[in-house]
């Protein structure tokens, strides 16, 4: 959510005019492009609704501001397929309702925003009561709280108070960075924003596409965001600077990345396919497994480092087919993936896989002879046939479903619910397997994380073979961070 907000701010930072409609539109656009995770996507929709509510007005009065807040909440609700109360949606709705009520009584902007802030704070407090998962953990909804903080920042600015800067999240460092290679030749990932008036978006899109690969050109006549892989970034930048003024320019050497993937790329023909697959994974092992099963583009990310809508969109645009199936492989990525379907001209279907085992089970149900819709539905069905066990360490003490968990305990999740704890991964896995209701187990696949010791992997595999003598037990390296083991039980 913070990254999404930063992306929105990045888009309005260079704007030195006091036209609210433009600021709101640009912020919405920046948020959408940088949207990561469910709360990030919802935030981007709130901003979008707010921009719609503001319309073409350069400034708003109290009633118009409240109406824009309400539109933000409405659009966000619409974007979520199954809205859940006790989340940031509730906070957005109650804050905007309070703003509307306040605006009926006063014309003072500060008062309206203050009411929204108070209602947001109250709503955040109540999220603990509304959602079981929050009550058990004894915390408030993080997205809701984030929205409250944004509104409070808004209020402080109106009241002329100084704003305190938040520290950047440590999580950000987990995103893998491309290391520049000394040899040139594999091209440069080039990104920038063209600013101006009456910008010819379609012309720019065509021109950029002609000059490079994986071109992604989005925007409107006032701002165009460009992402392209090219051998000659200077030529592209030269062209673009003739169209308008450039900002947020970034050029990355892709040599290192390409060298790593060279083998796979060489094998994979670039010819057009009937259908292409895009999947999200963290860990080189998982990436290789997905590619070996026919995934055309693997987007890095997953737990704690969700790929943005833009990352997913770039992957969808880069694959050689007009029909694309997307496997988010994480519950927090599904919404960002769903946004992609609205941003591309390609036909996109999202298979709602919430874990790597689910994603791989879905992938194995892929039918080369079937169309996009039939595949999406068969894959969505297949992913339910697998149970996922994930092993990690508790980041803090809590109590879940009567299970007392101390900080740093090994915990095992069965299909996203914490069901067992232990001193070592094997104990926790045994506990999770006890909770499994499946009658017959045919295959168990162990995906070892990057820090799972070799001897322990072997021991776990042997234990599983003893426990399920009739099943096929397979050990694979997922190389995923944070989770020493991920198990697929079929």
């Amino acid at each position, binding site marked *: 959510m913070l990254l999404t907000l930063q992306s929105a701010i990045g888009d309005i930072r260079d704007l030195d005019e006091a036209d609210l409609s433009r600021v709101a539109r640009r912020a919405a656009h920046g948020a959408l492009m940088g949207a990561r995770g469910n709360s990030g996507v919802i935030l981007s929709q709130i901003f979008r609704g707010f921009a719609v509510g503001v319309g073409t007005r350069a400034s708003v009065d109290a009633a118009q501001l409240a109406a824009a807040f309400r539109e933000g909440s409405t659009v966000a609700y619409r974007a979520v397929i199954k809205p859940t109360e006790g989340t940031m949606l509730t906070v957005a709705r109650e804050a905007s309702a309070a703003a509307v009520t306040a605006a009926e009584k006063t014309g003072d902007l500060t008062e309206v925003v203050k009411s929204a802030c108070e209602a947001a704070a109250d709503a955040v407090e109540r999220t603990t009561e509304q959602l079981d998962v929050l009550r058990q953990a004894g915390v408030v909804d993080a997205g809701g709280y984030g929205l409250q903080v944004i509104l409070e920042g808004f209020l402080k600015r109106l009241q002329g108070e100084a704003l305190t800067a938040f520290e950047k999240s440590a999580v950000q460092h987990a995103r893998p960075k491309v290391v520049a290679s000394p040899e040139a030749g594999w091209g440069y990932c080039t990104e920038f924003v063209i600013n101006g008036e009456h910008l010819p978006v379609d012309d720019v899109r065509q021109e950029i596409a002609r000059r490079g690969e994986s071109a992604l050109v989005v925007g409107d006549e006032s701002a165009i965001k460009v992402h392209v892989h090219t051998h000659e970034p200077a030529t592209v930048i030269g062209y673009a600077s003739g169209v308008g003024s450039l900002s947020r320019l970034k050029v990355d050497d892709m040599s290192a990345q390409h060298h790593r993937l060279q083998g796979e790329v060489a*094998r994979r023909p670039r010819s057009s396919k009937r259908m292409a697959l895009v999947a999200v994974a963290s860990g080189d092992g998982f990436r290789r497994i997905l590619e070996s099963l026919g995934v055309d583009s693997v987007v890095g990310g997953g737990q704690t480092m969700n790929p943005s809508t833009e990352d997913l969109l770039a992957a969808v645009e880069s694959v050689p087919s007009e029909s694309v199936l997307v496997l988010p492989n994480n519950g927090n990525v599904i919404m960002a993936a769903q946004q992609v379907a609205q941003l591309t001209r390609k036909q996109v279907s999202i298979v709602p896989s919430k874990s790597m085992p689910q994603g791989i089970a879905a992938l194995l149900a892929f039918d*080369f002879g079937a169309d996009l819709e039939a595949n999406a539905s068969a894959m969505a069905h297949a992913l339910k046939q697998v149970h996922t066990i994930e092993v990690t360490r508790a980041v803090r003490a809590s109590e879940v479903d009567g299970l007392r968990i101390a900080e740093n305990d090994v915990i095992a999740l069965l299909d996203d619910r914490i069901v067992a704890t232990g001193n070592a991964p094997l104990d926790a896995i045994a506990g999770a397997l006890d909770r499994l209701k499946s009658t017959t187990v045919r295959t168990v696949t162990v995906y070892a994380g990057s820090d799972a010791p070799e001897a322990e992997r072997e021991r776990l595999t042997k234990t599983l073979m003893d426990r399920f003598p009739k099943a096929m037990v*397979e050990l*694979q390296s997922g190389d995923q961070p944070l989770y020493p083991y991920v198990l697929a039980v079929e």
Partner: protein
Amino acid sequence: MVRIVTDSTADLTSAQQRSAGITVVPLNVHFGDQVFRDRVDLTGAEFFEKLKSSSQHPRTSQPSVGAFEEAFRALRSDGHEVAAVLLSAKVSGTYNSALMAARSVDQDHIEVIDSESASMALGFLALEGAEKAKAGASLKEVAAHVRALVPKAKILATMDSLTYLERGGRIGKARALLGSLLNVKPLITVQDGEVVPLGRARSWPQALDRLVEMLERDSNLTRLAVLHGAADTDAQQLRARVAPRYPGLEIHLAEIGPVLGTYTGPGVVGFTYLIA
């Protein structure tokens, strides 16, 4: 009368050949310098045994033009016209050999048809042609009947691995199934005469489940066979499993021969069938 000629990859038993009056021209399988006529000098079961012990990987060859000429001449001299239906021309030169033989023997009274298929799917086309001929149809009518059935002959199969298909250079579009890091079973079909991918399954039992599912998606089956190579038990079980769904339909068990076995390897099962 019209008589049917096919090749040994049709997987017809000698009883089926005899009762339908079908002439079968064998392809050849080579282990080093040793040559065996497909299903004549070597049965499927013997071949898979030999495959285990042999240090050399077998190769195959199409029947010679001469072998077809001989078969066509014998039938012509008995006063018959000939409809030859043969292994897919995309994967074998068999069809081409027969075409050349027909030109040199008697082009006007011999029709050569590309089945775009193999195994019992090809066998069914031959049997259909023979039945039509027995009913007194002309050469043109028999050939038209068989050609019309070409797109209706289907094969669904799974196998232990695709290594044999790849090594033999017949993998076609099923190449997309190669290279999986997970242990998976490939599912393939034959389309327009070529091997094409259907999907993957996580385990052998799951592969069999998928085969049955795919079979049941097609309706109006007129003929059905379970094919296998060194997987007799699985084939019997598959037959027992699908039989209740097709009352009144005789479900053949077809054992593939050495030539097809060279490309599938041991451990292959599948369905071949005709749809109305």
